[in-house]
């Protein structure tokens, strides 16, 4: 198992190198020369050339790529064209906000989806099943920003229970987390339901019942643990998504996360900012994927056996 984890961590290196290269290449294809953007219209050719060297934009794409990797290894992701501040520092200021929002969002999603999915599965084709499936269809099809606006209208403007935006104490996370979490819960509910339906007719649940295990424990222990793998998979994918930032929710709730940071940087052609943020997000997503794969091993011993082979 330890060897598996070390192998996976080593595999991260080529993945990151590849991602940086792709981001670098795409950014290079984008039209417009950033030097003009910084120097302004009146700059002379000589001034432009000096600035180009200063900004590290001289040389071909490969030399710039190598230089970037070298800086990256020292924790330097360059300086923003717009704010002139360190990309790394700016990103790290925003990251905790996104991490908090992402974690609470996933918690909301789990708390809604797993009970709902289980109830739908054990009462398949009943009223309860239909209601939870309609709810989850609603969650899937309702645009995030729209749900967010509705929630703001009800809970902050009308009832004045929570602030409508910004970061101001624990209360301010409720609405954004609910908005994103309910959307994610929809897919996870469906996954939980179908995965439980696969498990619920298995012979080993009958064995458990024949031992005198209570029905509650048959479902929550014997069945759920077997149904968990697809649920964890979907969880991992969605967690990766929210780690990249939920741009719409961050915009609606003025939540200073990395999603808006990236979108703003793209709009302002702030290339070092975009590249740096994408590299960091890739790293986070890779770590989440690794964690998901490790959790698999603890849920299903057959997967663990494959890892240690």
């Amino acid at each position: 198992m330890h060897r598996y984890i070390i192998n996976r961590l080593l595999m991260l290196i080529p993945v990151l190198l590849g991602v940086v290269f792709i981001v670098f290449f795409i950014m290079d294809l984008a039209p417009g020369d950033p030097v003009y953007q910084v120097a302004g219209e009146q700059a002379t050719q000589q001034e432009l050339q000096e600035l180009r060297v200063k900004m590290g934009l001289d040389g071909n794409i490969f030399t710039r790529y190598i230089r970037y990797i070298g800086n990256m290894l020292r924790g330097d992701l360059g300086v923003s064209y717009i704010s002139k501040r360190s990309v790394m520092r700016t990103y790290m200021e925003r990251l905790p906000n996104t991490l908090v929002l992402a974690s609470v969002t996933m918690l909301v999603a789990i708390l809604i989806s797993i009970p709902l999915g289980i109830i739908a599965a054990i009462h398949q084709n009943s009223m309860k099943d239909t209601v939870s499936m309609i709810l989850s269809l609603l969650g899937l099809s309702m645009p995030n920003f729209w749900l967010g606006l509705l929630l703001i209208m009800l809970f902050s403007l009308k009832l004045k229970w929570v602030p409508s935006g910004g970061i101001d104490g624990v209360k301010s996370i409720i609405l954004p987390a609910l908005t994103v979490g309910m959307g994610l819960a929809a897919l996870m509910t469906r996954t939980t339901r179908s995965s439980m339906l696969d498990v619920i007719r298995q012979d080993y649940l009958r064995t458990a019942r024949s031992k005198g295990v209570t029905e509650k424990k048959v479902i929550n222990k014997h069945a759920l643990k077997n149904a968990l793998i697809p649920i964890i998979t979907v969880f991992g994918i969605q967690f990766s998504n929210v780690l990249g930032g939920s741009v719409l929710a961050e915009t609606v709730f003025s939540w200073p996360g990395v999603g808006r940071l990236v979108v703003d940087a793209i709009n302002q052609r702030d290339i070092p900012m975009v590249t740096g943020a994408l590299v960091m997000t890739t790293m986070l997503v890779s770590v989440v994927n690794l964690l998901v794969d490790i959790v698999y091993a603890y849920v299903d011993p057959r997967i663990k056996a494959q890892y240690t082979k």
Partner: protein
Amino acid sequence: MPANDLILDVKNLAIRYETEDGNVHAVNGVDLQLGYRKTLGLVGETGAGKTTTALSLLRLIPNPPGVVECERMMVAGNDMLRLPIDKLEEIRGNDISMIFQDPMTALNPVFTVGEQIAESLEIHERLSKADAYEKAMQMLETVGISRSRGAEYPHQFSGGMKQRVVIAIALACNPKLLIADEPTTALDVTIQAQVLALMKALKNKYDTSMIIITHDLGIVAEVCDEVAVMYAGRIIEKGSLEEIFNETLHPYTEGLFNSLPNINDRMSKLRPIPGLMPDPTNLPVGCTFAPRCGYASAACLERQPRLTLMSGTHYVSCMAYDDPGFAINRRKQ
């Protein structure tokens, strides 16, 4: 036999599965009685309703689609029909337990075999986790598996070993009644004998009453005291082992014996029973075996025969015996 000497007393058990394509009549009026420390063989071909009968004794028929109707179902003095679910859960695994047919699917893949054996001990004997696990390890050794393997998962075991684990689970709390549903069918012939010997030894050790479901008359001859032959959801002949084997009455039971290969006459062909069991969604009015029966007369197709006491404890359900001179070919030889 007075009722309180019986571990099992079932009267007029009927089970149907209500599906969109109609009702499947799996069991149609079965009476079963079994004394303490006795072993009953429930014999019949696939689809005769043996497993459904057994599951209903633990009240494990899923509803929907299954509907159980029964006049009386007493297991070790418990009225299984009227007990609430929490009382049933106390009885399952403790008074009555079951060895399932397919060891490949009967074990939960994500728990160790030790945990799975220990679970019923934790529930019924109120043992701590550690004590239950220790006793589970003893149980594992009893069925011939080294205790070091208790921490392993089902996928690390062979089929025969899994069946032993399933047996260990069923026997963990020394049940008064053990139902073994084709316990050796999924196993190699060499392992079959071992498992059978093991079950016999454990049965004697713990004074367990047992129902063995099988279509293998060899197993019946080896371990059973009494035999009930099932066909299309009914018991068509029952009696002591000697009565069924030496004084066979029902043409279907005769057919079962005839379809056994004869080791003394290797040149003879197998004589299978022609035809198939009737469709349980659409059972015939008359004797369910009549369409396949060599002795059937017109009367057999008209009404259902009743299970009638012929001699000693020997019952048969066949109208041919209305004629006192009737005998099946097996008896004439």
